[in-house]
């Protein structure tokens, strides 16, 4: 418990440090964001008053304190461009990103575990060789290139699948409506499969190498001696091999959340990554700030979960 508390404290410290760095960066951004909205024909007093309203003319330390307070409570302000509260916009985008990530991660984890376990179990077979070779290839290849190639082949050339967006133009895009529609599935297949092609390699390789350790351990011998069928033994072994995977999953989620910027751009998926890119182009700082913060927060939270899980899974550490 004490260990957890220490970890929580360092988590909060790092979040604070990250926020501070972001604050400094954004303050250094060139250009006056208000120029977009404030007609320069207005009198200087009016401009100054409006800026004061937005809190932009307060002393720096005050702005900083307010910034930290707002960020910590997820009050992200109002978007310069879209004239909507940032948190609402962001929430939509996060949901969309999840719609792409979670199916992909699910398939990757389940499929990867199975494939990796079998590959590690049947060591030396052709299955293992092909699996490992392919996995290494896909693991190292840049995923956005695979995405572009997939787009070119399946969407442009063969026209099997739509080339972008989460649903077709004009279709309802509420969250549950999307989820229920076949349209979503059609749109999601390509980005999800591209994501899977990369993410599945992690669990495959991981399961394979941890299978090596387990296969030669004593308790497997005992199970065999008991006369249990080979498949059941495999199931037992897989369950033990899952341990390192548990922590890897948390890392996967953290990484996926910010790495999907590329895929979201390629497939015009309205997720949080794409939102950040457009916000930066539009100089829409509230959104950009919030996107960056959310992404960093997800990574940090996942890292924290990994640490906490480790203490639970491996009792040796919590002592």
């Amino acid at each position, binding site marked *: 418990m004490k260990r957890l508390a220490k970890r929580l404290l360092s988590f909060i410290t790092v979040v604070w440090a990250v926020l501070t760095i972001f604050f400094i960066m954004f303050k250094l951004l060139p250009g006056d964001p208000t120029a977009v909205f404030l007609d320069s024909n207005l009198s200087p007093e009016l401009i100054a008053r409006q800026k004061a309203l937005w809190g932009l003319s307060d002393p720096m330390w005050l702005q900083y304190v307010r910034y930290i307070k707002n960020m910590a409570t997820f009050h992200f302000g109002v978007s310069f461009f879209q004239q909507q509260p940032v948190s609402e916009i962001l929430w939509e985008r996060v949901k969309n990103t999840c719609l792409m990530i979670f199916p992909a991660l699910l398939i990757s984890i389940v499929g990867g575990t199975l494939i990796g376990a079998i590959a590690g179990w049947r060591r030396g077979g052709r299955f293992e060789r092909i699996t*490992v070779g392919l996995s*290494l290839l896909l693991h190292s290849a840049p995923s956005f290139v695979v995405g572009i190639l997939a787009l070119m082949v399946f969407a442009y050339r063969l026209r099997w699948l739509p080339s972008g967006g989460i649903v077709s133009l004009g279709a309802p895009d509420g969250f549950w409506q999307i989820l229920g529609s076949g349209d979503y599935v059609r749109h999601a297949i390509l980005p999800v499969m591209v994501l899977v092609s990369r993410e599945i390699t992690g669990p495959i390789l991981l399961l394979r190498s941890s299978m090596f350790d387990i296969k030669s351990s004593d308790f497997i011998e005992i199970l065999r001696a008991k006369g249990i069928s080979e498949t059941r033994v495999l199931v037992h072994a897989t369950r033990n091999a899952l341990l390192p995977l548990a922590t890897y999953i948390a890392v996967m989620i953290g990484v996926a959340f910010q790495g999907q910027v590329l895929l979201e751009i390629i497939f015009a998926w309205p997720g949080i990554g794409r939102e950040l890119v457009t916000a930066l182009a539009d100089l829409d700082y509230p959104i950009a700030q919030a996107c*960056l913060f959310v992404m960093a927060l997800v990574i940090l939270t996942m890292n924290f979960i990994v640490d906490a899980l480790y203490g639970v899974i491996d009792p040796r550490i919590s002592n």
Partner: protein
Amino acid sequence: MHSTESSIRGFQINTTNTLPISRTGNAPLSRWSGHVRGFFRIILASPSGIFGFSVISLFLLLAIFAPLIAPYGPFDVVYAGPHAVIRLSPPTWRNLFGTTNEGMDVFSQVIWGTRVAILVGLLSSLGSVLVGTAIGLIAGYLGGPVDRVLMRLTDIAFAMPFLPFAMVVISVVKPSLGLVILLVVAFLWRTTARVVRAQTLSLKTRVYVRAARMSGASHGQIILRHILPSILPISFLYMAVGVQSGVMLESALSFLGFGSPDVQSWGAMLNAAFRVGALRVAWWWGLPPSIALSLFVVAVFMLTRAYETHLDPRLRVE
């Protein structure tokens, strides 16, 4: 913290499997040349190593001799006649990979892009390994408050999502290749730092290090003589990995439009093609940089894998 990258690779650094294997005698100088020769022997022993090595050599040659091989400059426009720019032409004998929507020769662009890749790869990997090794060494050896501060710094570095962070920074400052390389270095050093620190900590407590201390060795002498030689293989490995990461990250940034406008990197090519929607039709524009990028990155990976597999035979596929 548990390094997932190395757990995927299944790699365990063990100082005994980096023992000197020189057959040329044990004097220091011939030992080093024995190392180099041993390295090549390892790399060329497996098919993946051979593949990786040949492809990288090919790219290296292309980069060095780019002016001789590429028929056009990276931004040169191809004319059929006065004011007749050849736009979006499919591959012809004149333009092996066709032309872009602005009339630039794709083949030449790919060749020139090789230079960017090699440059970015080398500089970013070298920089990140230098910084990472230095920080890891200092934190691990000195321990105490210095270690705590440096580790806190590393934690913060681990919290940073690269693409979003880099995009914001590039928006603040003018986009340039130097800035991209700097950002990649700032992102990559953290992995090396953690691993080097762990190794330094373990080495620091060895009996022979204490013996050297009691012989009168200063801290600097101990680091140079006893710790650094065991760390160098790790640094070397992470340098190779860094080449891969560096090129990928630069391409990603360029693809998103945050790369340097002065160079024609493969990522920038893809960005240009994608933005104008040319990919629907002009496959000749999108395919070559994609293949070049993939080939380069995979080749580096194969190379590092060949080296790793030698160090930890468990990774081998029988």
